[in-house]
């Protein structure tokens, strides 16, 4: 077996991946702690700061993409969307099963989700343009028949 050196591309990709993971490790821990604090104690400041941590983490991720001149990888998009969907589902079920929290926490948490969604959409539009952002979700076309050349 011959030894193989890492190519520049491999190093760059690994570097980016490690940086993104390192940033999310910190921001996610802080965000989860703040959100838990906010939800359990009804502390709106903690709740807002928890969402702010997620937002800062997202901005940091975008900055990493800018520095490394890359886009979000398919795995990152899939993981992000899954986590977001699980959180939304949890939120919906919590509102349904624990109505006593509805009044105090519904609005701030919903607002947090809206802000996060807006940030993602804003990033996609500024980065890919309106058409590009739309086409990213245009699954029908992606799975449709290929254009004739």
């Amino acid at each position, binding site marked *: 077996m011959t030894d193989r050196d890492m190519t520049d591309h491999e190093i*760059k990709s690994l570097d980016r*991946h490690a940086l993104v*993971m*390192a940033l999310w490790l*910190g*921001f996610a821990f802080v965000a989860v702690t*703040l959100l838990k604090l906010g939800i359990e104690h009804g502390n709106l400041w903690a709740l807002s700061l928890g969402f702010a941590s997620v937002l800062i983490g997202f901005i940091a991720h975008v900055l990493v993409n800018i520095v490394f001149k890359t886009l979000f990888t398919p795995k990152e998009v899939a993981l992000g969307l899954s986590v977001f969907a699980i959180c939304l589902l949890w939120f919906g079920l919590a509102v349904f099963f624990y109505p006593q929290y509805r009044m105090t926490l519904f609005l701030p948490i919903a607002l947090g989700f809206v802000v996060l969604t807006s940030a993602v959409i804003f990033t996609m539009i500024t980065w890919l343009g309106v058409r590009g952002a739309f086409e990213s979700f245009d699954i029908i076309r992606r799975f449709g028949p290929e254009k004739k050349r």
Partner: protein
Amino acid sequence: MQGLLTIILVLPAAYALYMAAQVSRRVTNGSDHLDAGASLTNWTYIFAAAGVLIAGLGPFDHLRLVASYGYQANMLFLSIVCMGLAGALFQKRLWLASRILDAKSPGEVFARYYDSPSIRIYMLGVAFLFAVPLASYFLSEAAGLLASASAGAISRLSVVFYIGIFTFIFAALGGWRAVVYITAALSVLMGLLVIFLGGLITTALGDVALFHDGLKVAQGVLVDAIPGVIQFTGGLGRTPAEGGVWTALAILSFAVSAVGIAISPNFSFLGLTTKPGRGFAFSQVWIVAGLGAGLLMSLAPFFAAEMDGTKQDAFHALFKKLTDLDGMAGAALILMLLAGLLLGFAYFAISGANIFAMEVVNRYLLPNLSHSGQHLSARIVLAVTFALIIFISGFVPMLGASFAPLAAGISVQLFMAYLGLCWMPWLSRSAVLVGMCFGASVVFFTEAPGLILFDKLFVPLPWGRWPLTVHSAAWGLLVNIFFCLLVAIFNRKGVERTHRDRLHDIFARDHKTDFGGRAARGAKWSLTLLWAFLAIGPGAVLGNTFFSKPIFSDMDVKLGIHSLWVWEIFFWVIGVFLVWWLAYRTQLSIVHTERLRVGELAEDPRLVTRQHQPQWLKQLVDRLSTRPAQTSRVR
């Protein structure tokens, strides 16, 4: 709480293992395993360097010190700015020298430049002190912290074993690149948690203890003042210092020892394995001197006020308050402290093991190893290092705690060698070596191991640890400088000098610094010295009352915070400006590679240490590696 603690430990552990696996899938080259192919990117250096320097200083111990000694101990955080200054002074030129001489480790750079295996051995000794006693101390403290946080449910010994074995696995799997990634990630985590917990303490724990009760220091300690420029005491363990041990000279000499971490072979190894760019400058100015020092000095008193500095387990009170608020908040405190300790433990242990593998095994013992052989030898050295660390921190933690303070003190004795390599070609090999030997001896006999040894074997020495409240590192450096200059007077010139000059000629020709004119050069150095005098030197005593009882007025000013704290923050801002001026404007830390010719002096017969493997060592290895059956057949 145990469940929560386990979960928060599993998260960084999972990250470490994942990154190690990712790297190991891509790296199969043995030398890359040891030094990441010297191609680490700037961001890894930026975060990892800051984390390593701060962890080396020990935020865990420093918070305890602030809780016990008040604002006089908080002044010690200014030594982080000094680490930034030392980095600006040496890191770039060391990196350039390593490329010009085609040397891969700090010991090799110095050995080639001074043509001296003794300096290499000295550096190996320093690397060992960081890799084993200091790393054992960090692991032991981390285990104690976890055992205490879990109220004894997790035993100290089991933590030592689990963490030790886990760290070995990920280091053996991922090599140097994975270690630096994880160091950087832990640094980010530690920084974010310091901010988060600082915010939580000042907003969510009710009344801010710092403003209501102040710091609960031990009896007789001056909470808000430096207790004089110097105290003529015999040292720690002999006669107690009045009002606290952190006099102005204690702070200054502590900063000297902190510089020892910044110029240690273990830390320099990180710089040598990094690709060039603006990473050195950014890290030194904004992350180390700026964010690191600033955050710690401004938030540490808030943490310390919630702790009980008079008790052994000083963190317990803060931990309990945070846990009462929310279990996750308490867990965040433990994670922050653990991140600092484990970062220091893992980084120093693994960097030391890698340096040893490169300098001893790959160079002297088995110089013709294949890539897979290098891989294996690196793992064996790692295993031996970790076995030693686990043994010391598990069964004889006092040994680690006694020898750990020697690491920075003996490392700072390399200061003159660094000056010679980077700036002063007239410092000869013998001058540097004589200075280092005398300096290291003085450090040894003003620290616990030397004192205990002398006391037991002969008679008790008249001084204790850190006599006259001056840190052992500074005593050593003082003696070192004296002897180094004395010897240098007599052998400034000669054949050796001509060969050393070749490197400095290349520095002057291709890698100029921009000090400006004579006036600008004078201003830069005099401002640095003035800053050191007022911020961490004898002038710092002015800060005791400078802002609360101004010297130009009879009135007392009610600031709401202590004058010394304001003084410290004021000089921190100036310190950051100074590091910026030197690192960026003077180009001390900006690396330009356009004119760099890698290996330009690699073929110089004087600058390359001749035979790699001494004959006696070759014979010994041959004898050990020859099978007995073969030997008898030959007979």
